[in-house]
């Protein structure tokens, strides 16, 4: 089951450049939260702080509190353990090219030392089914490489790979920006189903997408969170002038 996310006083830097300023945000369990804003506004940096991926960039630094459910992400837990509980889907599909479809999905389990073959078979099938890919690939999951699939299938494979480790939170960093409208539609449908079991945070440039999949939306600008509210409110009656300007296409 998903857990809620609480963020307090989050600041992040790349070298001496501050990318995030005092972010404060509560995300509800088993809901989808969309983050919108112009390029470079810090929304990707923000979700990379949630699973401590930000600090893998040389020179990057984070301060503040992030609570994933009861767990303090920046205190008393190693980044690798934290990331096993938080799945991440990236902008460009990035399946492991040397691995079969099966091995791609099982990668998180295998590489973390799990090797119960029978259970692994079930987990792989279940994960591929949850990412709506099982029917399309079930005949050749051992024979074909993950890289041989189409872009949209690769992205769903990456979602299956993230789900296989049974995370509580799923972070999606512009998961559809490299995909065509049909694949995008499939992934959006998927987000709809997945949010019954996972807490989803999705960064998107596509405001219609935010409106379609998310209950809550946050608007980022220049490293600050300008407004966070129910999606409906953000898109129909935003409180902040800058949000209104952005969603009506006056800038950004």
């Amino acid at each position, binding site marked *: 089951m998903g857990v809620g996310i609480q963020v307090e006083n989050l600041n992040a830097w790349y070298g001496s450049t501050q990318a995030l300023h005092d972010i404060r945000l509560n995300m509800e369990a088993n809901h989808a939260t969309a983050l919108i804003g112009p390029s470079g506004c810090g929304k990707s940096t923000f979700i990379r702080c949630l*699973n401590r*991926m930000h600090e*893998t960039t*040389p020179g990057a630094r984070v301060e503040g509190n992030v609570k994933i459910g009861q767990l303090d992400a920046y205190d008393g837990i190693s*980044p*690798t*353990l*934290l*990331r*096993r*509980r938080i*799945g*991440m889907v*990236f902008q*460009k599909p*990035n*399946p*492991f*090219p*040397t*691995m*079969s479809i099966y091995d791609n999905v099982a*990668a*998180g389990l295998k*590489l*973390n030392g799990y090797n119960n073959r029978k259970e692994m078979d079930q987990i792989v099938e279940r994960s591929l089914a949850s990412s709506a890919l099982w029917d399309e690939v079930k005949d050749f999951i051992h*024979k*074909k*490489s993950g*890289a*041989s699939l189409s872009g949209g299938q690769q992205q769903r494979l*990456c979602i299956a*790979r*993230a789900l296989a*480790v049974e995370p509580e939170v799923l972070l999606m960093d512009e998961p559809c920006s490299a995909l065509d409208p049909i694949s995008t539609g499939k992934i959006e449908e998927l987000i709809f189903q997945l949010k019954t079991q996972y807490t989803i945070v999705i960064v998107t440039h596509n405001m219609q997408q935010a409106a379609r999949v998310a209950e809550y939306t946050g608007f980022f600008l220049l490293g600050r969170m300008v407004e966070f509210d129910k999606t409906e409110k953000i898109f129909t009656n935003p409180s902040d002038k800058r949000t209104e300007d952005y969603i009506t296409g006056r800038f950004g």
Partner: protein
Amino acid sequence: MPNPETKQLEISLWRRITDHLATLFAISTVVLVLAPLIAIFAYLVIKGVGSINLSFLTQTPKPPGEAGGGMANAIAGSVLILGIASLLGVPVGIGAGIYLSEFGRNRFGDSVRFVSDVLNGVPSIVIGIVAYALVVLRQKHFSALAGGAALAIMMIPTITRTTEEMLLLVPGALREAAYGLGVPRWRTTLSIVLRTATSGVITGVMLAFARVAGETAPLLFTAFGNQFWNWKLDQPTAALPLQIFTYAISPYDDWHRQAWAGALVLIILIVAAVAAVRLAVRHGTLGGAA
């Protein structure tokens, strides 16, 4: 004013000519590159194939004047010495390459890179002297081990730099995908980065292997050569390049013929080793992999 249509025709004619010239140039450079290779191989076959027979492949050298004899001990010795060289050189080279690509973005990494490039340019005879000083003098014996050590030192810089280059080609997105699954960094490096770059790394290893397989100079005062069978690591050992060298500068026609045969066998062995490794690697990877 020329008619625009003729002008267009002229351009396309000129373009066609340059197009053909460029193609011709590309083809002739390929021929230029391949010609010596084919010529050498053909010449070796012509000169050497007549002397390759069962006794050449199974017997040790006979004293001068006696007919027959072969290079079996030299073939075995080469296999032994190259085995030692690979066992010593490949892990060190790959390890250093991994360090440079994954952890070496600092001054120490830069100095390792510099030293490695310098080592690549050191004449092989100098490396032979180093192995002589480090191994032979201490053991008080010429030995297969010393020969292997000399060749290993020659393999390391090539393997290090190609491994580094190949690992750097692996997209950062794959590393992030692994980190995102909670895979520790060491495991990501070995199971994702190195595995994705396997075929490139193997190419570097085979390049280094093929290069040192034919080396004579570093073996002169390390492995030294031996007219008899030897399987002991701490004893003087025959090697094909040494045997070829000895036979080629001898005054006997029979030995000259055997030197040609030895050279042919050496090339065949190198090609076979490279092909075998390639085949094994291809067998281990999936169809459709990028």
